[in-house]
């Protein structure tokens, strides 16, 4: 009796393997009434604040795209956004990706903001051949051989490079020699990617790295690091903080009377965000950070986006909102190009991927809201022309100061309150 049951069970297991792995009937390509795009962002948990802003950015972009006539090369098909919460862990992100694909079969998914969630979900999008337009900035997201993943926003190392390039350019303008650099970062993969970009840019510009340190993001006392930095006598410090540590370092620099000629933040966290500015008060002045979106870019499309966002949410678009606004426009341009290149089957994931790789945008709504003036993608899915913008706190207000052609105001450089 026992052995018979086991025999039956074994047969059942083998059978279910065979059926579940069996071939599926291929579907004929047919243009839908609406092109479904997925928004998969952390809408609950620790990163909800970013995910929610990102979702609003996407919603406004879809509205603007549809108002401007949808995807024209496909006969004006409008976009439809479907939203799913990715939670805050790798497994919930993966479940979210499986769920949104099985329910809606979107042509592309925008999102996941956090790198480890993006990587977990991208295994699903790769298998299902769904384009993933990522807004997570850690370099490794595009270094693991994903074919259907594209990232328009500047990656973390490009943030690091922007911070160094800004200081070099500003120093040249001001006629102040800035040769010795100290590099500092919190110890997440994001912090490290930023620092790698800064190191590379420092070497490219012939600077001398006199000090480098990685520290835990929840550091409680920065006195010894600040003392070490002062002893190394850098001309300027490039720093990728998390949030609270930016406040800690700014206060320690001041208390220890060890403010260098310039402190350049990188990676969009700390120093210039509203909470840090509030917490630091007057100490926040002259600190800067790099951002993946330029709310002050004076172009018609960007002004329209900022106005609509402000009317809906009450403040100017944050980085997460801006990144996803232009990401949606980049997707729109790729769909347009796919329609021209592959009129028979424009929504086929491989065709859409080809269109992404062929994109070379230098004008239009995507570029008008983008930090630089060119969007194109390498085989790995990054834009080699991506750069961040620099916001500096001047009189308690974060202002765009770099790139110089899109600056709101002139940078204060070097710091007037430097101690050495």
């Amino acid at each position, binding site marked *: 009796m026992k052995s018979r*049951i086991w025999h*039956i*069970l074994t047969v*059942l*297991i083998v*059978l*279910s*393997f065979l*059926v*579940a*792995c*069996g071939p*599926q009937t291929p579907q004929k390509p047919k243009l839908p009434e609406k092109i479904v795009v997925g*928004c998969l962002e952390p*809408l*609950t948990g620790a990163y*909800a604040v970013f*995910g*929610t802003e990102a979702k609003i950015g996407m919603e406004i972009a879809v509205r603007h795209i549809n108002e401007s006539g949808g995807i024209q090369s496909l006969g004006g098909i409008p976009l439809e956004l*479907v*939203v*799913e*919460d990715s*939670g805050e*862990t*790798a*497994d*919930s992100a*993966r*479940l*979210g990706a*499986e*769920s949104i*694909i*099985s*329910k809606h079969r979107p042509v592309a998914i925008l999102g996941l903001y956090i*790198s*480890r969630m993006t*990587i*977990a979900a991208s*295994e*699903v999008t790769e*298998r*299902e051949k769904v384009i993933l337009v990522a807004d997570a900035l*850690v370099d*490794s997201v595009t270094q*693991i*051989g994903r074919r259907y993943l594209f990232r328009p926003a500047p990656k973390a190392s490009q943030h690091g490079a922007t911070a160094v390039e800004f200081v070099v350019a500003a120093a040249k303008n001001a006629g102040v020699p800035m040769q010795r650099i100290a590099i500092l970062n919190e*110890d*997440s*993969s994001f*912090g*490290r990617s930023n620092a790698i970009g800064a190191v590379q840019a420092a070497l490219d510009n012939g600077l001398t790295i006199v000090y480098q340190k990685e520290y*835990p993001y929840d550091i409680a006392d920065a006195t010894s690091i600040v003392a070490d930095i002062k002893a190394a006598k850098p001309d300027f410090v490039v720093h990728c903080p998390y949030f609270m540590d930016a406040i800690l370092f700014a206060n320690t620099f001041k208390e220890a009377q060890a403010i260098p000629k310039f402190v350049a933040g990188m990676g969009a966290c700390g120093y210039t965000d509203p909470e840090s500015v509030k917490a630091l008060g007057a100490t926040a002045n002259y600190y800067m950070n790099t951002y993946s979106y330029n709310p002050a870019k004076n172009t018609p499309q960007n002004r329209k986006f900022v106005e609509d966002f402000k009317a809906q949410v009450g403040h100017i678009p944050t980085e997460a909102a801006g990144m996803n606004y232009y990401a949606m426009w980049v997707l729109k341009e790729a769909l347009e190009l796919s329609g021209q290149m592959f009129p028979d089957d424009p929504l086929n994931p491989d065709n859409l991927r080809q269109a992404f790789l062929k994109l070379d945008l230098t004008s239009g709504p995507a570029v008008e809201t983008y930090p630089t003036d060119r969007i194109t993608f390498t085989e790995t899915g990054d834009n080699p022309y991506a750069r961040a913008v620099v916001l500096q706190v001047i009189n308690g207000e974060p202002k765009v100061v770099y790139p110089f052609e899109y600056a709101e105001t002139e940078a204060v450089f070097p710091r007037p309150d430097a101690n050495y």
Partner: protein
Amino acid sequence: MRRSRKDINRPLLILLLGIAVLLPLVVRSNQYTLVLLTTILLYGVLATAWNIIGGLAGQLDLAAGAYLGLGAFTTGTLLIRWNVSPWLGMVLGGLVAIGFALLVGYPLFRFGVKEVWYALSSAALVEVLRVAFLIWNQVGGPVERYLPYHEWSLYHLRFATYLPFFYIMLGLLVLALLIHHWIRQSKLGYYLMALGENEEAAEVLGVNTQKCKLQALSIYAFLVGVTGGIYACMYGFIHPNFFSGPMSTEVAILGIVGGMGITYGPVMAAILLVSVREFLRANLGGQLEGLYLVVYATVLILIALFRPQGLGPLLRQAYDRLLARVAKE
């Protein structure tokens, strides 16, 4: 009555197992349903393992994330560095988890740390390991480490579909349930239940509580460590955030909601709560952020209010009633 109960129990269990085995047939290649089912099984294994230390021995352990992370890192590191198959890696991961459990459990039990203090110490353990692995650059570090990608490799335990993971997890769940059942029937089980009720009284009666608790802790750590190895292969990378506090708490919640010490309780709780949570997340998460967490929390509160002894006894009552009716007819 006794005879009919036993007669019905075994075929019923085989029927349930058969349904579980056939489930992928029903969902065919819908990967979302498969990953959901696999996740339910995963939490089922973790909660069943927890039920040994938490349910039987009454120790409110909040360190599942620590053992899961150790299993994942052992398996992942062995595979990435030396191409050691995860089949071996997960067993070694389980042993590493045991080693660590003994290292921490011995002093804790030796000095009589219990109740909330044990809960707090075990919760702290997860965070300590997370930070340690973030600093330990040779093995952990802040950057994710990826397992080699294979469309279908039994040796590397890497597949492009969840189907094999579903069956592996199902097998592990059956093993965990058998172990729990066996412990419950054994001398160790009675000792554990005695010390779970009243530790001092058990000691007076001659139970070596420290040894029993260490045994329970080791079995629990081993099962969770093995699960960690499979978890790493399923997600394809390892990262110190695998040492997760919220996940540890969730495992304990499933164990408690399922009914402390009842063999099938945590599995039921996993089936009910994980699928309810996921259903709510998938259907409400996009509409109103956080609404699904409110609904989920309400379900938990209702269970705590009306079924403080968990869902297990409820099912047992219903089952007994059904049996009684069958016997009458």
